[in-house]
């Protein structure tokens, strides 16, 4: 049996942990740069607020409505969902974190246990300990588990856990499951199926295999079809450990000059290095991309990606920032208004033992960089991210107090909440 544990309206639920006054009220969370709505509470959904709606339209379309608005605060969401995963780790024999708000569990060897009761207990423990509500779907494969979690979320009668463990239950659920909701079937394929009269998952599951093959010629769709019919086909490797890490941002406004771009890219590279160090890995390939705003058809367009292999796999901020800056200088073209840039690191492996390259045998420098990173990490953990940064990461603009802006503030976040679980300065006040 498989299960999926899915945080309900994850970002909104995380914000509500420290704002219990917002329970039962409409709440939305905005994307990076406060661009558009990425998460909505059930109350906001009921009002008709759509996912992806640009923030500036909220006031126009819902005048006079009291809707609480938050900038996204990934530091908070990452910490709280990490707690959810740590509870799952204690309760399930095997688990795999699929995304920030979804975690698969493998329940082999738990045949003697009442799984429905187990799921309800897991919900209760997470809800009470962390304060975030989850929906749990349990079924013989991942696609059906996703479907079950949809029902657990939708109908309170399931008490947050829906178990699909018989053919009868499977068929009943498939008939109520809209084709567009199926995990693994994108919007494009869903539209194609709808055009052929397929409305529910059941309609699709009832197709003969040959028809699925001849209509789509697509192994992923065939796999999904087989899973809807109860087979276990989505391989676990398909969800294996992240093979690349990307840090990218849309700028607040446009950037034209290389110097400013370089500061942004240096920050992304430093962030990638930090992520690598946190999971005790190193990367051997660094890639950088830049692009202009494709929605501004009145402006000249440019998109470029370039990658380089490091002489020695690394997770050092100094090394990655240097490599990324060099790549940026290569792909940068003057005369364009850039909207976005990003750094991707690939070829990720465990950080020890590192294969030192014959032509890069400066072991002493390597050790020095390593202890420098360790010091930076320790200071930033204690005093807040970006207390210490590399010179290349420093923005020239000054804020109101005359201090140079840091990366976290270089993107717009007018409504960001505090970080009561990661910064001593932000812990809750008790009157």
């Amino acid at each position: 049996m498989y299960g999926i544990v899915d945080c309900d309206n994850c970002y909104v639920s995380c914000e509500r942990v420290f704002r219990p006054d917002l329970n039962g009220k409409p709440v939305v969370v905005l994307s990076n740069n406060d661009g558009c709505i990425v998460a909505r509470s059930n109350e906001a959904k009921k009002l008709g607020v759509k996912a992806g709606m640009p923030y500036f339209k909220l006031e126009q379309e819902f005048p006079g409505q009291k809707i609480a608005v938050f900038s996204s605060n990934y530091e908070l969401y990452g910490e709280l969902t990490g707690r959810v995963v740590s509870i799952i780790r204690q309760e399930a024999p095997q688990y795999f974190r699929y995304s920030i708000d979804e975690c698969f569990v493998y329940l082999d060897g738990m045949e003697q246990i009442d799984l429905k009761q187990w799921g309800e207990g897991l919900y209760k423990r997470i809800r009470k300990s962390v304060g975030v509500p989850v929906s749990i779907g349990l079924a013989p494969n991942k696609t059906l588990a996703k479907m079950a979690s949809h029902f657990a979320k939708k109908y309170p009668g399931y008490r947050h856990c829906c178990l699909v463990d018989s053919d009868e239950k499977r068929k009943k659920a498939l008939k109520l499951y809209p084709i567009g909701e199926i995990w693994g079937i994108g919007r494009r394929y869903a539209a194609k199926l709808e055009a052929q009269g397929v409305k529910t998952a059941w309609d699709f599951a009832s197709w003969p295999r040959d028809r699925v093959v001849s209509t789509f010629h697509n192994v992923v769709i065939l796999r999904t079809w087989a899973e809807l019919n109860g087979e276990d086909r989505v391989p676990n490797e398909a969800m294996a450990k992240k093979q690349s890490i990307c840090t990218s941002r849309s700028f607040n406004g446009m950037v034209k000059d290389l110097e400013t771009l370089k500061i942004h890219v240096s920050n992304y590279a430093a962030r990638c290095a930090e992520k690598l160090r946190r999971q005790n890995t190193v990367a051997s390939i660094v890639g950088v991309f830049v692009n202009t705003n494709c929605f501004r058809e009145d402006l000249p367009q440019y998109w470029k990606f370039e990658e380089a292999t490091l002489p020695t796999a690394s997770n050092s901020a100094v090394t990655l920032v240097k490599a990324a800056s060099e790549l940026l200088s290569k792909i940068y073209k003057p005369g364009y208004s850039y909207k976005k840039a990003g750094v991707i690191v690939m070829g990720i492996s465990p950080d020890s033992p590192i294969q030192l390259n014959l032509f890069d045998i400066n072991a002493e420098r390597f050790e020095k960089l390593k202890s420098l990173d360790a010091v930076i990490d320790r200071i930033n953990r204690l005093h807040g991210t970006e207390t210490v940064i590399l010179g290349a990461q420093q923005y020239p603009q000054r804020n109101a107090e005359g201090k140079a802006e840091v990366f976290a503030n270089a993107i717009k976040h007018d409504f960001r909440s505090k970080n009561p679980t990661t910064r001593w300065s932000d812990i809750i006040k008790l009157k």
Partner: protein
Amino acid sequence: MTKIHILPSEFKQKLELQMAYAIKAGFPSPADDYQHDALDFNRDLIKHPEATFYGRVDGDSMVEAGINDGDIAVIDRSVDASDGDVVVAFVNNEFTIKYLDLSHKADGYIELKPANKKFHPIRIEDADNFEVWGVVVWTIHSWKR
């Protein structure tokens, strides 16, 4: 006079093996048999890390309970609050630290009691819809400012 026992202690995030016995050459140390993990606040005092949050006491409503302005409260959300516990609750749009008094539950209300005569108890009439945010399991007071 109060006796103070001094105990060896250690405060760190990760517990590491202190010694790899197997690869040691030569005569074994007679202390090996008495190896014991050092005391560790994170391990021994925080029973449920995923349910533990911290708060800073703001004001002196609990001063007679030995909880002072500026103290750090260690809050465990997974513990069920019992009558008489020091709890954190969200009332009137703020978090508050008080004693939980359930003795009037039969009369349809519960009270959050301060430990300072200058403050009044907070009466929660709608006890059914009231939720304790977490139970305070420790407070930390710094004696050296």
